[in-house]
């Protein structure tokens, strides 16, 4: 059984290798090969899952060491896997959603000449992400961590001929690298503290280390999580990452990769529990991001960017829950899974809409689409109901639990966190309703197809369809092909039922508890009150959005808006800050350094050369060619020698 874990990772890796090195011969079957290998990985995951269910709750973890990776002195990193319930949850989510999105991409990328490579990158992503969650030590986790970063870079920049895509890809990788520095310093701290960085000994002995060390490790892990999961202050890359093809946004930037930070924090629970200050930092980051993402989501007119803001916000919920400690871990992961379903579904729906609308992404140019795309409408609508927490759907159960847990934190902190989470729920309802209304309801505000050069256009637009809609023609919305709708339907089913299924008999709680532990917090407010409050804010949010966008027509050109709206459109000025401080400042710095290198460092060397040269030029003047003056110097020299000799004799 243990060997299957290796195969789980190896299958998509093999696919990536074959597809990327295979050459044009594979163009015709490459996408199916990639999908097949993703499915194989899912099947292996399912087998492992079945096997795991067959064992006792305490005895479910599988460990296997494949080989020694880096043995140097006391430093030992192994390639080894650890599959427990937590990893298993992720494996199923990654391979399951991953396979569906592979399938969706077959249709979505049909007209792209580089489809084979796209599937190669997708497979590479799956392999790295699986490695991340099944690694049994932090260094191997780091490999997966950077591996998904690479795959994300390649996929965001998949349409490399668009400068905006290439820039977004670079930005994503760089911001992630800043987070990665956190992870690497955390690993180094673990090594100096524990002499190892394998999960088992580090987490097992965490309580024996000093609180200062644990806090430092915890904060560094949080920095890593912020980078990967787009949490404030490292969130700026996620919005730009929407330059990638939509399936990528669904898989990587909604369902799986961006949740890696939550995995990291949950996995390292033992460390955070020994470091209350670090935990406080985690919940603060979660709470701030939750509002930040939600506010940004309210102002964006680009459907994908609105969803990206929403993703940020939802992950904020998860980070918040994970920062609460044992009362929140299980719900963080539960929300993560349900979010994986509905957010992937929403993104795929958005992709389907764009597919039918000449790759228009501006929601102000949609409207009234429910009639033309029934399947997309229904699946997107179910996802919408799930995310706002409509009673009975997935999001309702998972988000409600998080809000409860936030209150249960206790004290003033509990009230602040709970209040923030509730406020977030209201804003979520508002912006998602806004997206829903602007896209599917109201009057048609369709506009001629954007020219393919426009940065927002997805270049699949150039080719797809029957070639009738070039630039300048009105779109003919149509339902997407089966390969795209089937994954959407399956994800919609997940968005509807997953939450209920998990909560029934506390199935999910019992499943994860042996790994993450669980405590019932004692909340100052009863569960029923929380649910009631959630419902209330939900209604308020939806009503507000309907009042603003449903009752009166949506203007095609965005109104100027309040100061907050304008700031939110610009990602709350984070990018401007980055641009002025980091980009400009960095440019000045490097340019200044280059000047210093030329003038001072190299100047010192060249200066020495010039001085020596000048000096020898002067000396040369002494040689004037007159025999008489040479004779003088000879006489002078002789006189000095004699004088010296006499002097020495005298002394």
């Amino acid at each position: 059984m243990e060997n299957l874990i290796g195969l789980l990772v190896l299958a998509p890796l093999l696919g990536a290798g074959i597809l990327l090195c295979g050459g044009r011969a594979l163009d015709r079957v490459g996408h199916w090969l990639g999908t097949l290998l993703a499915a194989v990985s899912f099947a292996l995951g399912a087998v492992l899952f079945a096997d795991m269910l067959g064992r006792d709750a305490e005895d479910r973890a599988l460990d296997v060491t494949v080989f020694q990776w880096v043995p140097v002195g006391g430093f030992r990193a192994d390639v080894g896997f650890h599959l427990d319930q937590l990893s298993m949850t992720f494996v199923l989510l990654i391979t399951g959603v991953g396979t569906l999105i592979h399938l969706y991409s077959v249709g979505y990328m049909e007209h792209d000449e580089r489809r084979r490579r796209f599937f190669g990158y997708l497979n590479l992503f799956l392999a790295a992400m699986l490695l991340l969650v099944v690694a049994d030590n932090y260094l191997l986790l780091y490999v997966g961590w950077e591996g998904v970063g690479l795959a994300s870079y390649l996929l965001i920049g998949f349409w490399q001929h668009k400068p905006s895509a290439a820039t977004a890809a670079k930005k994503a990788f760089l911001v992630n690298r800043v987070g990665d520095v956190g992870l690497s310093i955390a690993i180094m701290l673990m090594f100096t503290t524990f002499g190892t960085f394998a999960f088992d000994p580090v987490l097992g002995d965490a309580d024996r280390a000093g609180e200062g060390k644990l806090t430092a490790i915890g904060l560094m892990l949080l920095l890593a999580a912020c980078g990967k999961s787009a949490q404030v202050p490292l969130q700026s890359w996620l919005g730009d990452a929407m330059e990638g093809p939509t399936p990528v946004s669904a898989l990587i930037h909604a369902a799986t990769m961006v949740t890696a930070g939550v995995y990291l924090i949950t996995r390292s629970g033992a460390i955070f529990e020994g470091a209350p200050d670090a935990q406080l930092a985690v919940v603060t980051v979660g709470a701030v991001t939750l509002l930040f993402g939600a506010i940004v989501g309210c102002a964006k007119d680009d459907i994908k960017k609105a969803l990206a803001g929403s993703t940020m916000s939802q992950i904020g919920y998860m980070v918040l829950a994970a920062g609460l400690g044992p009362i929140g871990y299980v719900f963080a992961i539960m929300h993560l899974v349900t979010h994986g379903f509905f957010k992937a579904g929403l993104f795929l729906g958005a992709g389907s809409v764009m597919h039918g609308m000449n790759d228009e992404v501006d929601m102000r140019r949609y409207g009234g689409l429910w009639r033309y795309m029934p399947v997309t409408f229904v699946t997107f609508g179910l996802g919408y109901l799930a995310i706002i927490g409509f009673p009975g759907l997935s999001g309702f159960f998972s988000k409600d639990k998080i809000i409860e847990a936030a209150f249960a934190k206790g004290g003033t902190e509990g009230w602040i966190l709970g209040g923030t989470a509730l406020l977030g729920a209201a804003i979520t309802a508002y912006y998602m309703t806004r997206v829903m209304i602007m896209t599917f309801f109201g009057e048609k505000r369709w506009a001629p197809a954007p020219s393919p050069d426009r940065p927002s256009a997805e270049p699949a637009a150039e080719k797809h369809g029957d070639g009738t809609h070039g630039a300048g023609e009105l779109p003919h919305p149509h339902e997407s092909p089966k390969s795209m709708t089937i994954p959407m339907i399956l994800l919609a089913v997940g968005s509807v039922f997953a939450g209920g299924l998990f909560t029934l008999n506390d199935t999910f709680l019992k499943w994860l508890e042996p790994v993450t532990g669980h405590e019932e917090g004692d909340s100052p407010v009863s569960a029923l009150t929380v649910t009631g409050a959630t419902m209330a804010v939900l209604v308020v949010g939806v009503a507000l959005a309907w009042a603003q966008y449903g009752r009166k027509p949506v203007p095609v050109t965005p109104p100027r808006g309040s100061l907050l709206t304008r700031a939110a459109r610009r990602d709350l000025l984070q990018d401007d800050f980055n641009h002025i401080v980091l980009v400009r400042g960095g440019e000045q710095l490097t340019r200044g350094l280059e000047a210093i290198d030329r003038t001072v460092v190299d100047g010192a060397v060249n200066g020495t050369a010039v001085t020596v040269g000048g000096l020898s030029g002067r000396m040369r003047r002494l040689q004037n060619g007159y025999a008489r003056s040479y004779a003088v110097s000879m006489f002078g020299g002789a006189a000095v020698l004699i004088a010296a000799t006499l002097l020495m004799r005298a002394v």
Partner: protein
Amino acid sequence: MSFPLLTATAAVPAAGAVLTAAVPAAKREAAKWLALLFALATLGLAAVQLARFDPDGKTFQLTESHAWIADFGVRYELGVDGIGVVLVALTALLVPFVLLAGWHDAEPLETAAADRRWRPTQGFFALILMVEAMVVISFEATDVFLFYVFFEAMLIPMYFLIGGFGDRTGEPADAGEAAARRSRAAVKFLLYNLAGGLVMLAAVVGLYAVTADQLGAGTFSLQEIVQARSSGDLKFATVTERALFLGFFFAFAVKAPLWPLHTWLPGAMGEATAPVAVLITAVVDKVGTFAMLRFCLQLFPGASKWATPVIIALALVSILYGALLAVAQRDIKRLIAYASISHFGFIILGVFAMTTQGQGGATLYMVNHGISTAALMLVAGFLISRRGSRLIADYGGVQKVAPVLAGTFLIGGLATLSLPGLAPFVSEFLVLVGTFTRYPVAGAIATVGIVLAALYVLVLYQRTMTGPVKESVRGMPDLRARELVVVTPLIALLLFLGVYPKPVTRILDPAVEHTMSQVHKTDPRPDVRVSTAEGAK
């Protein structure tokens, strides 16, 4: 007496150089194949060395020793430890690729083709083999004087390689100016390194004086000196030891190069052809860092510890400074040169962190940096040869017209930014961990280099490979068969050593332990002894 394997490994390329140089002007192609043959033979001998080397055996193996200048105690003494044998193998491995990559770099001009005395191709290949021979013997020498002779002598062929052969320029009119720039760069390279070498010569003479004074007979033998020092027969006065250490270190810091002695490198690498640039940074410069480990630390452990804080600070400056300047470069080759300065900072940091991980990482870094820079630089060279310009701004959208070239370039770049899964990650992380355990602040500062590395690599990739296809790169051919033969094995090696570096660390480890014991340093112990750390995992 057994077969002198170490001598043979150096003698074969030297003989190859002489024979290649003697090939008549008309038989250019034959000269190339001859040179390649000899380079491959050297590779074979290096492989035999590796096979015969026993990691658990004595420190120095396959030793040879003959009297040379008896009056001054100079001996012809060769021997390899784990670090030496691996670096010899790296050199022997890279040179055939350098030759293949530079296959067409030294064709005679049309106008001069008739002149039978003019044989640039033969000269180019012969000089490269000559450098190889000298580098190999530098890695093998255990006599300080013998090392010094070849450490300096390799400047001569390098000078001609840098000054004599350059990139094809786009406009023939620029050729004269390019030649003048090249010549300046070569002179700068030579003067810089000669200055370092002269200081070292003074220290070598000083070392002789001390040994002659205290041991009765002066000696240059590394092993004898180290032994005498550990047995107490030889004691350096503190000031003498520090002065001698600085003399040696200065020469190696110029060669490595360490900030602020680095300014010769960008010029030399920028003006030389890509294969020669690889030869500089991946092979010749490694002698500098190698010699720090072998001579500075082993001969003068006390002074090494004394100088450590300053050297670590300089190494940190190198890391950040090199990376920041790489970001600002407009010239592809100069960018890679500054990146190398950053990487040499990491190597020196690891060497002087004085931990097993740091030094193990640094030695592994030498190997990995050699391979990754070779991959990146050679692909950059292929790119430059297609367009005749080194300026980043002259490229754009290459990915669309030459996807394989762009892909290999990206992999080379990713290796340069130490992506996990590729070889440099392992060594860079080891260096960082090794530094961090002793100097947490320095380790943390060095990690900033990771971010900057990503910045300069991705900026370079974005500007040259992505975006709309520029008119100037339209119709650019993709990698040819010869170029693929060069790049593919390097990339395969990067992947292999990234996933399974054990074959190399297995050989390096005992040598590093030995060096550590010479310096009397042990690794800092972790705060919490984890009970299960050793046995279970």
